[in-house]
């Protein structure tokens, strides 16, 4: 989870600081909630790192 610190003219994040990272998504929930409570107005970006496409996975929703 990254705290965004810079943006381009379209509002896309260009800079940020890594605040929390973990192997499982659940672990990111508490630090994200806490950061927003501690810093009202903060903007965060939560994303998955590592392999973007699990081997052999095709999505059919």
């Amino acid at each position, binding site marked *: 989870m990254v705290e965004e610190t810079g943006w381009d003219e379209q509002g896309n994040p260009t800079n940020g600081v890594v605040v929390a990272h973990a192997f499982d998504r659940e672990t990111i929930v508490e630090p*994200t909630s806490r950061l*927003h409570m501690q810093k009202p107005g903060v*903007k965060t970006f939560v994303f*998955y790192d590592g392999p*973007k*496409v699990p081997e052999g996975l095709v*999505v059919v*929703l």
Partner: protein
Amino acid sequence: MSQRRGDRVQGRRAYGGVLVIPCQLNDAYRYWFLVDTGTALTMLSRQVAEEIGLDLTRPMRHERIASVHKVTRAPVLRLNSLRVGSQRATDIEVLVLSLPPDLRVDGLLGVNFLGQFRPTFEFDQGTLVLR
């Protein structure tokens, strides 16, 4: 006659070719969502709902959800805002449902958002255009 260029939102293709794009919720929380014209209501993962402070004990209602493999029920809540690129919609209803961890996205961008625009998919560029 001039063409409206629209707002080009750069995403990426994944999982066999579907399009995922960054979405910002309530002007503060950004996540990757899978763009899904087969989803009526935009969907959030349970983790996102917790992070942005939605009260899952007090949903507006529950909906029956029919997907390709099962029918289930899920709570419906309301987002203050949902921004994709420079396009921002307010008072958007969302479903909250657990998503498979292998999806590695935090939500599905559904027709209740997309339908407010004339969306065009440029799959070769990994881009969603909203007019």
